[in-house]
């Protein structure tokens, strides 16, 4: 066979079909069948009529919304300070704020847990608060990085122009900088929101026994209930699709997730 550049993508295309596309089909199959393989909608209707499951969905959304908001409130000023003023020239400084994402998350959460243990006495007393603290601690760098890159790329001439046209610093920030940094905010939000709905290990490690969407998959998995688990996975996929359509995932996001190894 003659060598062409195109043919180089064959192995990867096959890999994607086998391990990305095929698992999705399998999820669909299992979500809409019962243990014997007969077609059923009971997994779907079961989820939406079970008050516990719906409660979990609501609780996950609550944790995800609060975590995302807290991350944003902390990350935006951080990114802004790092990307403007004197620090703009010293680009190595951002690495200090991004570095935690390269330290194994389970060890970081262990460290946080030991500290919270001392401060709070009994972790189980504040499940929601601890979940939000834990997730913020875990995901913060993923919010800082995309916002930082977006603000860094802003042309300072826009701000100068706004000032020349009579805007004070406050107006210039709210009418120019903030709207222009929306792409960064959006990718930060989508990087935090979804993990906050699914990363149940953070809750587990902080002695929070409340379920979030991810924990449902975990418990179905432990019970060998592939059908129930597949349905939860599908519902999560639906939420992800919705998010991607609304916010749009871009390259910033994917870069940020692995860290700024540009």
């Amino acid at each position, binding site marked *: 066979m003659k060598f062409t550049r195109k043919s180089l993508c064959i192995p990867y295309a096959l890999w994607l079909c086998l391990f990305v596309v095929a698992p999705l089909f399998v999820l669909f199959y299992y979500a809409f069948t019962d243990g014997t393989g007969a077609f059923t909608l009971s997994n779907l209707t079961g989820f939406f009529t079970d008050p516990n499951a719906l409660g979990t969905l609501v609780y996950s959304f609550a944790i995800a919304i609060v975590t995302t908001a807290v991350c944003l409130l902390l990350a935006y000023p951080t990114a802004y300070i790092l990307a403007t003023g004197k620090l703009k020239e010293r680009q190595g400084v951002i690495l200090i704020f991004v*570095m935690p994402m390269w330290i194994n998350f389970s060890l970081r959460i262990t460290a946080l847990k030991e500290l919270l243990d001392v401060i709070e006495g009994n972790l189980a007393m504040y499940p929601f608060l601890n979940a939000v603290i834990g997730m913020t601690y875990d995901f913060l760098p993923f919010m800082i990085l995309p916002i930082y890159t977006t603000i860094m790329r802003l042309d300072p001439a826009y701000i100068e122009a706004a000032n020349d046209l009579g805007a004070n610093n406050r107006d210039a920030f709210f009418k120019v900088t903030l709207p222009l940094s929306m792409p960064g905010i959006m990718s930060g939000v989508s990087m935090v929101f979804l993990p906050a709905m699914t990363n149940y290990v953070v809750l*587990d490690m902080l002695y929070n026994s409340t379920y979030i969407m991810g924990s449902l998959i975990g418990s179905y998995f432990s019970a060998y209930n592939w059908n129930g688990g597949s349905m939860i996975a599908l519902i999560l996929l639906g939420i992800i699709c919705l998010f*991607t359509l609304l916010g749009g995932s871009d390259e910033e996001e*994917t870069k940020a997730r692995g860290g700024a190894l540009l």
Partner: protein
Amino acid sequence: MKKIVRPLFLGIMLLFMYLPILILAVYSFTDSTQIGAIHGFSFHNYVTLFTTPELLHMILGTLLLAFGSAVIATLLGTLGAIGSFYSKERTGKVIGILNEVPVVNADVVTGFSICILLVVVFQISKDTFIPLVVGHVTLSAPFVYLAVMPKIKQMDPSLYEAALDLGAKPSTAMQKVVIPQIVPGIVSGFGLAITLSLDDYFIATYTKPATFDTISTYVVNATRGSQTTIKTALWALSTVIFLVVVLVVILMNLQNRRQGKEVSVEKTA
């Protein structure tokens, strides 16, 4: 005002991000089993960490898995990126979209779905490590693809043509002209693949053999248990990893700075 508020805010953020790790690091050098109690200086956590076979196996296993899956992911992702760039537009687009799936998907879902496909449908035993490696490669290859793609787009297409005109076979031109130009993308893709594998918990839990543990799965299980020797040895592990990451970041920064200087020299020359 600005002069005080800005550094103060950054300081508080750093404190929040690093205080837990630093406190744990300090206590890892004591014989204390709990934070808060003051105890004598001791290296025993480090001795335990580096002499307990169970812990050593777990660390070595994690590193091997990260390295192995990163090599496969880098190969697949790099070839995939080159191939799809030169394919028909539609083929390239489809590959690009499929490539996004593991990136935006929740790891719980990725891990669970791969487990169902390989373990439940195809009946492949988890003990073969195949599901685990497949899972980690599926997670990281898309990031390699995304790291390499921009480098291919930046490349001057006429260089490859020139090599062909000068008599190089397409495969030779690929090796000698295209690959060397995208090396930075390949390297950062490989780095991404390593960090993703090291940090992963969910895919590993759903696909790993019962007797094998990565650092993440081991630590999560250890926090449920009550073995204090293991618990405090993990403090030592956390400190070691922290120092390694700091070192790597410093080296990377130095390297970037040197490259930055070279570039600016080239520009002025």
